[in-house]
């Protein structure tokens, strides 16, 4: 085994352990919750003590916690996330479906946010203490300060007549050529993605600005000036690469909050994504669904952060030593 693969395996091992630990913690943490799936499921016309017990049996909730945990692990080992209490479909399907809706929307939003945030942050640092800097940082601050749900409603009001404001696609469209389906999807994505982008880009701007600004005091920046590099190159070659560590760290970190926070966006736009699924699952105490959704989110966030660690290692060789 080469040292390279040993290194990689080590990293992956840590990540796997992280996922496992998180899942175990989630399993028990959420079960400490008052209330259970059965009570709300049984609160229906026809509900009775017997129904409650039948449901408990059906979902294996009559077993002790440890037994449930073991069942869960065994299922998981078989790649089976269980069956959702509320939709009765395999959680894997449900989670993948939700993820399929969340990922493009979130990705678009985040990409816009990173693009706008980092660029504006760099410009603000470059023109620091000028009117441009003030305008950029203050706009970023103010927009970032606005509650997401509030941004959403403002966008809905402004664009409701031009763009769809709910759902991931036109539910009543019967067209089936790939292009019109795609166009429809994109149209639906614009407002939620934009909301997400607006709600997050501000922090990227501010962090980029302060990280870049911090490098401007270093000798290598003035050396770069001496070497005849114009401002844009100084920024691109010296200031930005040296500022990237905190920026990358923050972006990776925001993956967790963005996915978690997509609950708000997904609610405001009736977007059938993972955040919404998680919220519903918790309200309905749909544990299999909740665990499944958390597993996926966990994996995504851990992977993103792992990636950030690797990238940072590449970005700043001093970290490794």
């Amino acid at each position: 085994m080469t040292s390279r693969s040993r290194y990689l395996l080590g990293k992956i091992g840590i990540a796997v352990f992280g996922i496992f630990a998180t899942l175990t913690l989630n399993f028990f943490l959420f079960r400490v919750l008052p209330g259970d799936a059965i009570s709300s499921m049984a609160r229906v016309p026809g509900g009775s003590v017997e129904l409650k017990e039948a449901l408990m049996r059906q979902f294996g909730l009559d077993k002790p916690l440890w037994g449930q945990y073991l069942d869960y692990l065994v299922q998981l080992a078989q790649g089976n996330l269980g069956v959702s209490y509320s939709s009765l479909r395999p959680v894997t399907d449900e989670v993948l479906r939700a993820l399929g809706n969340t990922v493009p929307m979130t990705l678009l939003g985040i990409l816009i946010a990173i693009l706008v945030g980092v660029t504006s942050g760099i410009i603000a640092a470059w023109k620091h203490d000028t009117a441009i800097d003030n305008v950029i940082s203050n706009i970023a601050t103010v927009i970032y300060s606005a509650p997401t749900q509030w941004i959403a409603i403002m966008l809905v009001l402004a664009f409701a007549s031009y763009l769809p404001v709910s759902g991931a696609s036109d539910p009543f469209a019967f067209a089936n050529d790939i292009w019109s389906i795609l166009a429809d999807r994109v149209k639906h994505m614009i407002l939620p993605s934009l909301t997400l982008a607006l709600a997050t880009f501000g922090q990227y701007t501010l962090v980029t600005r302060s990280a870049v600004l911090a490098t401007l005091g270093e000798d290598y920046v003035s050396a770069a000036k001496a070497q005849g590099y114009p401002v844009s190159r100084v920024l691109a070659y010296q200031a930005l690469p040296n500022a990237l560590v905190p920026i990358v760290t923050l972006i990776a970190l925001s993956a967790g909050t963005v996915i978690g926070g997509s609950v708000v966006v997904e609610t405001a736009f009736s977007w059938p994504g993972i955040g919404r699924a998680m919220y519903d699952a918790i309200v309905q105490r749909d544990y299999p669904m909740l665990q499944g959704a958390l597993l996926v989110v966990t994996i995504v966030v851990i992977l993103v952060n792992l990636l950030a660690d690797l990238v940072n290692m590449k970005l700043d060789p001093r970290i490794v030593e």
Partner: protein
Amino acid sequence: QNGVLRVGTSFSCSSLNPYTTTQSSCLAALRLMYPSLGQASGSEVLPDLATSWSSDDKGAVWTFKLKTGQWSDGKPLTAKDAAFTFNMLLKHVNGPTARRARAIANVEKAEASDDQTLVITFKQPTSNAVGRLAQILIVPEHVWAPLAEGDGAKIATFPNDEPVVAGPFKLSRFAADQVILLEANGDYFGEAPALKGVGIQFFTDSTSMVQALINKQLDLVTPLPVTSVEAAKKAGITVASYPGLRFHSWLFNSSENQKASPEIRDIKLRQAFAHAIDRKKIAEVAYLGFATPGDSMVPKVTGDWSNPKVVPEKFDLDLANKLLDEAGYAKGADGWRTTNGRKMSYKVLIPTNVEGAEGLRALEIVTADFKQIGVELVTEQSDNATIAAAITGPDNTFADSTIAQWGWIPQMDPDFILSVVLCSQIGGLSETAYCNKDYDVLYDAQAKEVDPEKRKQTVWQMQEILERDRPYIVTVQQNNVEAYAPGWSGFIENPIGFLDYTSNRPFMSMKPGN
């Protein structure tokens, strides 16, 4: 548009399994796809698959004459399918089909004596037998029989994403919690619907739903948020508002286990409280006039079942103060009443995700008024599961909670809502731990009574007991508020609402204009 009715709703539907889902919108959509013996209309049942029915003298054996039809996979639909369906439900009633237990209560067996005759035998006379049986959706034996084998666990996990149906519509697309699309079924055994198709879209945010209606992306919205009525009207949308079944209420913990505030079990105190709740103001402000002061747990829209003698207490703070004084709850110098050396202050549990902003506003109104009768109320809000646990907890002992604000949606038949306060429901649906043996006896009597008139008397009597003991104070009876775009006709005001889990009539009567 082109005969497709696009419905927007803030309810959701995540599964099309007819025996496990409890979501009313799923059931309403399934009712458009699957046949059933009849369709409810008020307290009546109109023929559907069954053209007529009759019973023996005791009301224990019911014979139904059925139409025949064709399932969407080409196989014939006969009485055998119906018999299979009932027998399957019976067999697994303690397991996968437990959710349908009430509808088939007391049924002993079902038989198809020929392709067009179904005979259902009850163990004992059962009130509203046809109404109950008509709730059951009939499924094709050839699809479900394999699922029903053994312990029937597969019934509960069957996703039913490509249902084999025989009703007026068949499924063309289903995306959980997003949309259900149906198209007219050419092989339907009954009269073809006026609609070519139906789409039901599920919204998590009411503002965007109303926007979609205004932007002509929807034809009908149910329920329409009361706060958007003005906006909808302005946009030329027709708004229908009429009495519905849903009520909101205060519930009091009646359990002896609750020791901290025993006075909460004092009927006099509950009486006084009832006079301090300004039902009219709640209806006008919280529900913007789309509600009426509530009275009995059996709503007035159910017609004769509701006891006319049970009426809302008049709002009178002086009277409430007087009643409390008389009951020995003296006001202290600071204006708050005390009992057993404690200030009278109660936590009011409220499940905000179901009671909504309206519920919170209603509670604010009451809180302000209660201040004037020297009783402090403290809101404690959370989601329904947490609140349900808090009400009954810990471990169903009802030892901690005192007051909660929550509601129910009764059925047109009073049986269900009356069952909620049975002793046997403690641990089940009971939210109050109310237990009255006399009441339970009456309940059993009405459940067996086949004569509607006699049953009515018993039901009325039960309502009077509830009014006396007040496990619940019904505060308001909510209107159904629904809106549809101009150009549509045939809208019926259905107490259960447009998405009716007991009847396909609202959809079947809708007609596209011009």
